[in-house]
């Protein structure tokens, strides 16, 4: 299983803060994004790669990163702290 987290605007727009998906061979951050985007029109819009960041196991990542069973993958907008 892979744990997926959503933060901030994404969390609100998707009305969910987390879900799990099954692990599979050769899974990447980009493939997970595509899979989630296929859920419906709302998800398709929100999971578009513009202004979308991804972290794997709490480290910022790119869209080519391999994702393995047990990993935690988070999607969120550009950060605005400080």
């Amino acid at each position, binding site marked *: 299983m892979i744990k997926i987290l959503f933060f*901030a605007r994404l969390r609100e727009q998707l009305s969910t803060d987390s879900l799990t998906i099954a692990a599979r061979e050769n899974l990447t951050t980009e493939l997970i994004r595509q899979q989630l985007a296929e859920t419906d029109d709302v998800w398709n819009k929100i999971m578009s790669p513009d202004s979308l960041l991804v*972290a794997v196991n*709490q480290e910022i990542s790119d869209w080519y990163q391999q994702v393995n069973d047990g990993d935690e993958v988070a999607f969120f907008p*550009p*950060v*605005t*702290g*400080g």
Partner: protein
Amino acid sequence: MIKVQKNDFVVADEYLRLAGDNQDGAIVTFVGKVRDFNEGLDVQGLSLEHYPGMTEKVLSDIENKAREHWPLNKVTIIHRFGNLTLGEQIVFIGVTSPHRKAAFAACEFLIDFLKTKAPFWKKELTSDGSIWLDAKASDNDASQQWHNKLT
């Protein structure tokens, strides 16, 4: 010392923790607060969300990066989350060093990097309703300038 917390912090206490060592000639602190105007809307408060676990990791990485570049003794980073009202303190950065140039540069580096790397998100509560803030180009520029300067 890195703290991500809901509660307010007391600058006087943080200063005392920083200021104890006789080897330090310079102590620089930065405090960021909720201010009343942002992009023309009058702000009544903020809701600050973060990514527990990742936040602490990123702040620790940023501290280590600063220590690679400058001779620092103590470093304190405190960032709050949750609901904050106008005028409340959001973030504290404090550094000590034998040298003032290093203390200034490191303190500014830490807040600049925090702003573009640490997973915090601000939702502003204004008289027109609440809105998630967009990242500022000026913050990205500030972070990029350090990158260019230090590499």
